[in-house]
């Protein structure tokens, strides 16, 4: 296993490493960084410009520190999935770039995923009170979002981190699903063998009840729940269920969607955490009545009701949602470019002042804070 390079003396070795050529993988310094536009557990995101052709891109750094198993499989998954998914409503991966190795970085390259730049993210737009969406514009946003989901689901990919901050919108009004860092391929159950995916996915506020109850054999409906949360947010302007803990999130879901019982969700009692979590009894489903003050359009309320269905097997899929009357009645979906044209500045959640909750949205990979003793009573109806 001794390569010739290990037998070189250190000086020669360093020179050799510095001069290695990678004809197919360009150096990142062909772009110049302009600003940092995102930060999360996944790493940093920068806005940058191509030095020659001036094209604006987003650079997402691949975090490699503390990696025990080489190049992170999550990054590799994201790359593989993005290479597969080429669609108008999915963020476009241009290439992968590297830094040149020098003594300064201890001869270790850093890698960047290079994306087409999008001016806004939906969380940033919604947190800006000056940005007003008309009903037709909301329809256009949701139609594009569902189109993107329809495409990825029919390619057997789950996004698993749907939230407003991961929905990008270009200045010309084209919506792009982004951040496939948690995405994975899914399969229909083979030989009746249930899948065993991790249920520690999806940012808490957008996480559906089946994941909170420990389901590991889940599928596209987990993304549809997130789409429902995002759709409601188009009117409420802040996430509709902002739980502090998994227990609290479930309580909020029950308060909105009614009690979780086998009568409305057959076999729910078989889920691992069904008996371990506290599920409020006797709650009536009030999705429509609670959202009505915000969402005047009856078709919108009806679609929201179908997206925020507790039982994942009954939750509407992307195809059926796109066929809903909401998208096919006046006012019809209309272009966003005109409205966005009034706002010259980029809007990202990272750059925006914190929204109503006053704290960043908990990321799924992080341990959630412990519940407050009196949580359940004091949180009622807080969001609406």
């Amino acid at each position: 296993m001794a390569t010739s390079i290990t037998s070189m003396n250190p000086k020669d070795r360093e020179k050799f490493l510095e001069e290695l050529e990678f004809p197919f993988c360009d150096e990142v310094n062909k772009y110049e960084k302009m600003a940092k536009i995102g930060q999360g557990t996944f790493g940093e995101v920068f806005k940058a410009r191509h030095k020659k052709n001036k094209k604006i891109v987003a650079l997402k750094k691949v975090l490699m520190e503390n990696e025990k198993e080489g190049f992170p499989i999550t990054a590799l998954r994201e790359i593989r999935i993005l290479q597969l998914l080429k669609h108008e409503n999915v963020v476009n991966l241009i290439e992968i770039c590297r830094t040149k190795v020098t003594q300064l970085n201890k001869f270790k390259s850093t890698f960047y995923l290079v994306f087409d730049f999008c001016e806004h993210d939906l969380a940033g737009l919604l947190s800006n009170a000056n940005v007003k969406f008309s009903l037709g514009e909301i329809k256009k946003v949701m139609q594009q979002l569902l189109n993107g989901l329809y495409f990825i689901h029919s390619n057997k990919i789950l996004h698993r981190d749907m939230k407003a901050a991961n929905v990008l919108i270009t200045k010309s009004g084209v919506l792009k699903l982004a951040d496939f860092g948690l995405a994975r391929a899914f399969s229909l159950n083979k030989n009746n063998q249930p899948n065993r995916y991790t249920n520690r996915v999806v940012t808490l506020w957008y996480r559906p009840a089946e994941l909170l109850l420990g389901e590991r054999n889940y599928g596209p409906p987990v993304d549809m729940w997130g789409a429902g949360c995002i759709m409601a947010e188009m009117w409420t302007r802040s996430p509709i269920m902002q739980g502090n803990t998994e227990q609290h999130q479930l309580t909020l879901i029950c308060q909105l969607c009614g009690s979780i019982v086998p009568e409305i969700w057959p076999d729910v009692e078989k889920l691992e955490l069904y008996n371990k979590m506290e599920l409020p009894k006797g709650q009536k489903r009030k999705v429509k009545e609670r959202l009505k003050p915000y969402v005047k359009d009856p078709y919108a309320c009806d679609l929201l009701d179908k997206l925020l269905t507790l039982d994942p097997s009954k939750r509407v899929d992307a195809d059926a949602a796109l066929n809903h009357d909401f998208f096919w009645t006046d006012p019809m979906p209309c272009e966003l470019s005109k409205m966005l044209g009034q706002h010259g500045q980029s809007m990202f959640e990272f750059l925006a002042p914190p929204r109503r909750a006053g704290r960043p949205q908990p990321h799924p990979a992080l341990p959630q804070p412990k519940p407050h003793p009196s949580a359940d009573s004091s949180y009622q109806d807080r969001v609406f």
Partner: protein
Amino acid sequence: MDSNMTSNLLSPSSKFRPIIEIATHQGPEAPSPILYKSVNNHHNAQELATRFLFECGVKLKVNPVTSAVAAQIYHRFLDAVNDSSYDPYMIAATALYIASKQQDEPVKIRDLINVVHRTLNRDPEILDLSEEYWNYRDSIVQAELLTMRMINFKTINPDIHLYMLNYLKTLSFWICPAVWEKSPLVKLCWTLLQDFHHSKLVIQYEPQLVALAVIYCGLQLCGIVIPCTTENDQLPWHEAFYKNAKKDEIWNVIENFLALYENDKEMKH
């Protein structure tokens, strides 16, 4: 813990005795061990490295498709570097490591190193967390990044396998069920395709063409004729699947691949 056992553990004779005898662990199909390290010429080592790769794949219990993807990564790397001084076994091990991640059945680096170490050395010494272990580890982690940069992070999909599966599925509706069920065609095609991954030609031809060549070869070997077709058809069955798959082309591919088996005989002697 009883005292007898304790003394046994401490006695030098039983120290580091493998818990499972390796010989009994290998199935009847395991090929006779190749002494990879004693191959003196580098060109042969480069060719043997795919054998090493598949052997490690079997020992790590990865899906055969993952090993095939790894072999394609290996060939692509050698194709891109124009430099033959890289240790082919290290590149093969790295290719397996990358493929296992790409195929979503990641292999632990510790397991990979253990398997690589035993396969290369064929000696029963267990690899401790020694300097040698860390050298292996550094080499693989570095080579992983090197390889991915060389192949430009391109995801390798098992295209040939997928095409072959689809073609075979279609043919299964066409060939008389009695013949189809009795013949070993599908298993034979699968084996041939895995074997073809020992040659770098596997990444040079179009995947459709390789898939059809494998099936064509399999049909010949099983003596199966596609019903209602003759040699002089306007549109032979293989061209119906893929219009570039002319008969001459297919034969060309088959001949090139069958040369592998001749090389194999030479290499063993």
